[in-house]
């Protein structure tokens, strides 16, 4: 299957040699992995003059491997990465802007959230096949016992007090009073992905997004302290939250509500069937907010033939490929046309809530700044402290100061000359 062999095989007719693209992707769950491999194979069979050579790297150490390859000047032509890392990679000068290569049709077809995630300093740097979302998965039967209203759209989300009233009533009927799963068994990025939307919903955030320089007064604002104190109370004083060590709290029927991303739909729907409901996250004051963003593709500076790379990305973004992938991982298809063809995601589909959240402004991209790796690491530590009962205001003050110190150390992450592209 080496591209050079094409030349020899082709009965004497001299063909231009195929462009070989080195592509790095993440080795996700098995279904995702197999899909990506199948699609690369499909592209290579359909395309004569471009050959994609795919390497899958383990997810856990992905960023470290990219950084190592960058230092050694051995980045591939096309690189996949987790959404919020794109701004750091752009700043480090690893990627090229895609604006001149993306067709207007494709751009119009992409969900606004995908464009938002891939855009940094008014240029587009990355494209994804799918997007993500948060929601509360609920057991309809348990919610019915306490006569809870079940919201089906983000604008009708439970208000903070209403949500706490529901938790209280569920706890009254529960053996151990633990009725909510916050996936406290997850580690790392989950804290930022899963709980920074609560900050936004309260009118706070990780950082001031006007120029991404200040965290003081945003991450440690009164609204932020109130929102995080609420979550701390659910876990601590009120004891509503199952520690979920076995990742079976919701499936085993120990809790009525599970606060998690779309990826649990596969397991949950299989086990619960019609008893499963998908509910928007509660509104902490300024409307319900969800996370967004997922794995993305970008073209690196070392790519000699960006047009060929773009053909590969356009192929991946074809409806059939997008739908094949989202059938494997239950994520939200990244294009409007694919959403329209997905029964689960169309209006009235079981997962339409995620599409509504992404397309109606309820989803917030993680901060679009090269400081993101530091912001997320600091917030993860802060949330872990809050979860374990530390004083919320003290923790958030320290976190805000640490983030600002990093930004100051990096001279505010000034735009680099290469970013002009």
């Amino acid at each position, binding site marked *: 299957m080496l591209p050079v062999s094409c030349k020899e095989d082709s009965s004497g007719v001299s063909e231009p040699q195929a462009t070989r693209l080195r592509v790095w992707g993440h080795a996700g769950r098995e279904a995702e992995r197999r899909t990506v491999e199948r699609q690369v194979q499909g592209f290579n069979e359909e395309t004569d003059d471009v050959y994609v050579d795919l390497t899958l790297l383990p997810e856990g150490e992905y960023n*470290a491997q990219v*950084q190592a390859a*960058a*230092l050694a000047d051995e980045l591939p032509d096309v690189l996949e990465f987790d959404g919020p890392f794109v701004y*750091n990679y752009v*700043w*480090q*000068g690893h990627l090229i802007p895609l604006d001149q290569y993306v067709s207007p049709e494709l751009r119009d077809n992409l969900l606004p959230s995908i464009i938002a995630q891939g855009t940094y300093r008014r240029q587009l740097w990355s494209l994804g096949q799918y997007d993500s979302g948060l929601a509360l998965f609920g057991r309809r039967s348990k919610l019915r016992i306490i006569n809870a209203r079940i919201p089906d759209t983000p604008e009708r989300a439970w208000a903070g007090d209403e949500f706490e009233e529901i938790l209280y009533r569920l706890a009254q009927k529960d053996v*151990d009073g633990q009725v909510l799963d916050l996936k406290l068994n997850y*580690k790392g990025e989950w804290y930022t992905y899963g709980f920074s939307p609560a900050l936004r919903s309260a009118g706070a955030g990780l950082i001031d997004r006007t120029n991404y320089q200040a965290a003081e007064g945003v991450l440690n604002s009164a609204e932020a302290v109130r929102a995080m104190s609420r979550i701390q109370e659910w876990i601590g004083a009120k004891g509503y939250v199952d*520690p979920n*060590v*076995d990742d079976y709290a919701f499936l085993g029927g120990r809790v009525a509500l599970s606060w998690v991303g779309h990826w649990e739909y596969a397991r949950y729907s299989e086990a619960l069937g019609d008893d499963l409901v998908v509910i928007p996250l509660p509104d902490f004051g300024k409307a319900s907010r969800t996370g967004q963003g997922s794995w993305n593709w970008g073209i690196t500076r070392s790519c000699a033939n960006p047009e060929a790379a773009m053909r590969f990305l356009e192929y991946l973004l074809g409806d059939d490929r997008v739908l094949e992938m989202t059938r494997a991982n239950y994520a939200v298809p990244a294009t409007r046309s694919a959403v329209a063809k997905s029964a689960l995601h169309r209006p009235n589909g079981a997962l339409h809530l995620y599409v509504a959240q992404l397309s109606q402004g309820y989803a917030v991209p993680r901060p679009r700044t090269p400081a993101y*790796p*530091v912001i997320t*690491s*600091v917030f993860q*530590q802060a949330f*872990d*402290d809050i*979860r*374990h*009962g*530390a004083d919320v205001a003290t923790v958030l003050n*320290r976190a805000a100061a640490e983030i600002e110190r*990093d930004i100051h*150390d*990096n*001279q505010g992450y000034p735009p*680099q000359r*290469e970013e002009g592209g």
Partner: protein
Amino acid sequence: MNATRHLLRYLRCERVVGPFLAMPAMLGLVLFVAVPFVMAAVLSLTNLRLGSPLETKFVGGQQYERVFADPSFQRALLNNGIFAAVVVPVQTGLALLLALALNQRLRGMAAFRTLFFMPVLFPMALVAVVWELIYAPGPSGPLNAVLEAATFGAATPQDFLHDRMLALPAIMFMSIWQGVGFQMVVLLAGLQEIPSELYEAAATEQAGRWSQFWHVTLPQLRNPLVFTALVTTILAFRVFDQVQIMTQGGPVDATTTVMFEAVRAVFDRQQVAQASAMTVVFFVMVLVVALVQRVLVRQRREVV
């Protein structure tokens, strides 16, 4: 003439052959210990960041000021101190007890020795994952269930790894469980080296078992004991795997360590210079402990 020849031979042997033979080891030491340490020391005086397009600048002692002012790093230093102060004596003492108990000529003793040694063979990552399950909160957690049964219900279920008072002891307990077998084997070998004549002589002198232990066993075991204590101390300062897997330094820094803080700084926050400063502090700390132990051991040797 004769003297010159002697001198030449001496030179050839000591000055030339000696260093020549030591070269491979010295080269390794320089390449893998001295150079990285000097690099870390130099980097710790800069503001180097992983992958940053900005210019690296010399910032003097700023990273050290920050590191020492950081509450997490202060707590890490304290935790490393507590860990070493508890684990080294307890683990060594326990290993000695086990070695004494297993130094009997009974049938099936080899099986017991193997059992106690086995945890040493498991990778720490595996042991940590298993103990995370053992420490599971709630009445159904294995350790909670055992404690409840053993105390006839007096012990209430604990969330060991998420309790600020219990998390560090829980990590220390599993570390001792994992590491004690190694010291036990070293001490067991030491015990078997002790000539039985010494015990026979002691018995003739009417020495009881306790007295035999104090005046024969312990002095004879001095070298293996010194060795195990030294190795355990260094391992105690290096503790990282179980923290990374079981608690990520939490709850609220209760289990964080110097190594954990350094790894977080460089790999999560791309702060190479700050992590370098942490590792330099760490190196100096371990060096001081090793030197102190060396001095103590040498003094005892001179007395004996």
